[in-house]
């Protein structure tokens, strides 16, 4: 651990910064492992990596309290992990093993860990915005001080559910924070080609009586500060926020996509803004020692290795799961 320098003793502080770095490392290393595993054909189906976007997951999750809720998309491994879900559970789910968070029933696009506040990953564009709003409604009604956070992409700002959720959340002044991770692309189409405004989320905020908020999504400190402000507002009864975080995914949209539609120099410029080396440098600048940084990195690497082995060792889900948990009684009967 570094001696706290004055510089690293600002509104964020060293402990939080180390947590932010650790969280980014966990997401990055786990996603890289997922990539290796699907190259080995140990992960079936699809997978949407968030490599390049880790600062957003880390920044928000670190600012959240236990009891707060995250709602994310199919690109949700990072957000789920950042809330504290087990690495084994995440990898196991991707691999369709019994140890998976959902015992293989959901798959890569639906990671959920309710105990940790990771309230689900939703694979239909836009659907989870109104759902997150509903959680916030519960918090408002019960006056519990919980906040719901909803992550989604730039492409999601053009679908109807976005509009309905923003509009009703703002009217009801609900404690929900909408976070648009603008990585410039839908699947293979540039968001600029299909959207009539420059900032697909922020430019829409005034339509709901909300301020335009844009943050550097590759700087975990900036994300963390924006999150804190939005959470404070929400808990104070000030209603929702809509935050647009600019970022970039390093890989293609999903495992099937090499991402060739992106201009080389765009890719190069964004790779140079990789959030993780950037944040590592900030830690060094703030006086954290190389050794303590490396220690984090190695701890994470070790944890990812353990999780990989555990997931590989886990059996496929038992067949009787198929007919379980359609209903709250644990069963699936639709007849007597």
């Amino acid at each position, binding site marked *: 651990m570094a001696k706290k320098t004055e510089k690293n003793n600002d509104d964020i502080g060293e402990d939080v910064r180390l947590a932010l770095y650790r969280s980014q490392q966990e997401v990055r290393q786990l996603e890289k492992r997922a990539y290796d595993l699907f190259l080995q054909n140990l992960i079936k189906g699809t997978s949407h990596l968030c490599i390049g976007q880790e600062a957003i997951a880390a920044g928000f999750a670190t600012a959240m309290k236990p009891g707060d809720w995250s709602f994310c998309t199919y690109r949700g491994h990072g957000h789920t992990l950042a809330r504290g879900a087990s690495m084994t559970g995440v990898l196991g789910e991707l691999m369709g093993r019994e140890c998976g968070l959902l015992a293989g029933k*959901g798959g890569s696009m639906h990671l959920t860990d309710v105990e940790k506040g990771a309230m689900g990953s939703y694979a239909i564009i836009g659907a989870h915005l109104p759902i997150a709003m509903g959680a916030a409604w519960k918090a408002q009604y019960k006056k519990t001080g919980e906040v719901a956070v909803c992550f989604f992409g730039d492409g999601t700002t053009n679908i109807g559910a976005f509009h309905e959720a923003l*509009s009703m959340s703002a*009217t009801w002044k609900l404690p929900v924070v909408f976070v648009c991770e603008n990585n410039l692309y839908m699947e293979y189409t540039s968001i600029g080609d299909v959207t009539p405004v420059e900032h697909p989320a922020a430019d829409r905020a005034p339509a709901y009586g909300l301020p335009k908020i844009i943050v550097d999504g590759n700087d975990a400190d900036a994300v963390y500060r924006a999150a804190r402000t939005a959470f404070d507002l929400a808990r104070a009864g000030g209603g929702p926020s809509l935050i647009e975080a600019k970022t970039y995914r390093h890989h293609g949209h999903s495992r099937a996509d090499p991402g060739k539609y992106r201009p080389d120099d765009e890719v190069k410029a964004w790779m140079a803004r990789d959030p993780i080396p950037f944040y590592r440098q900030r830690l060094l600048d703030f006086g954290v020692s190389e050794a303590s940084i490396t220690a984090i990195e190695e701890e994470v690497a070790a944890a990812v290795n353990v999780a990989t082995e555990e997931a590989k060792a886990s059996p496929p889900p038992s067949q009787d799961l198929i007919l379980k*948990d359609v*209903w709250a009684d644990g069963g699936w*009967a639709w007849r007597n």
Partner: protein
Amino acid sequence: MAELTYRDAVAAGIAQEMERDEDVVFLGEDIAAAGGVFKATVGLLDKFGPERVRDTPIAEQAILGAAMGAAMTGLRPIAEIMFSDFFAVCWDIVVNEIAKTRYMTNGQINLPLVIRTANGGGLRFGAQHSQSIENWAMMIPGLKVVAPSSPADVKGLLAAAIRDPDPVIFFEHKALYPTKGEVPDGEHVEELGKAKILRDGDDLTIAALAAMVPRAVEAAERLKDEHGIECTVVDIRSLVPLDTQTLFREVSKTGRLFTVEENPRLCGWGAELSSLVSEEIFWELDAPIVRITTPHIPLPAADQLEDLTIPSVDRITDTILKSLG
């Protein structure tokens, strides 16, 4: 026993449950201050206040998303979709989210919620405000589907739906709102998934739902009075869970099944009942299974045309007579 309208039984059922459990909340368009466009929720705002009975914007995805998010974090919401036709604008939240989330999450998420809606035709509202869509809901795994035909069932089954730990789609029939019937005093809760035998007869079995129930009963009376034919009439009441025991027993007894449904023909619930019977109790059948349905067309608006389209007492009677030969 007090006599209530089907319409008032809705408010009575909701009030009973909201009094019992402060986690029951209710939202929808024009349901609070106005008491609902069918006046089925009058008085709830006054009784329970604007934090529990909330008017929403016209945004059905937001309404059902709100219900789902609230249910998964501990409330027991009731959402109104004003006309069942409008399920089409929020179908994703119903079928991809509400219906699947418990299963996909391996049981991590509970969704105790009810979606009430005004279903069915007969009011000359035309093709976009008159549909019977209970088959839309029945075909989706993960939804319970209830459709009462009497005020007592409205109150008792709605209460049961609200207490049920799973999502229930609750179809009120808009043509039945003004009808009256006895409703038990005090707390009244029915059980989901039980069909009800309304008439007992040995010649044939009619299975009906919602507004088709009184028509089936009237047809049965006419068949008896005018032709001496004795019909069993089963009010299905709940499509999911489905009371196949009662259905099979009553069909086995008579050897003949007629289904009367307001759905347009293709893939209506009558087809499901028919396929169940001809797969599982085929050897009990004495004759073809006959489905009486709305023809496979959108609903016309003009009164004479609408009356010809939805199964009527005349059509039920005639079809049965023709089939008996």
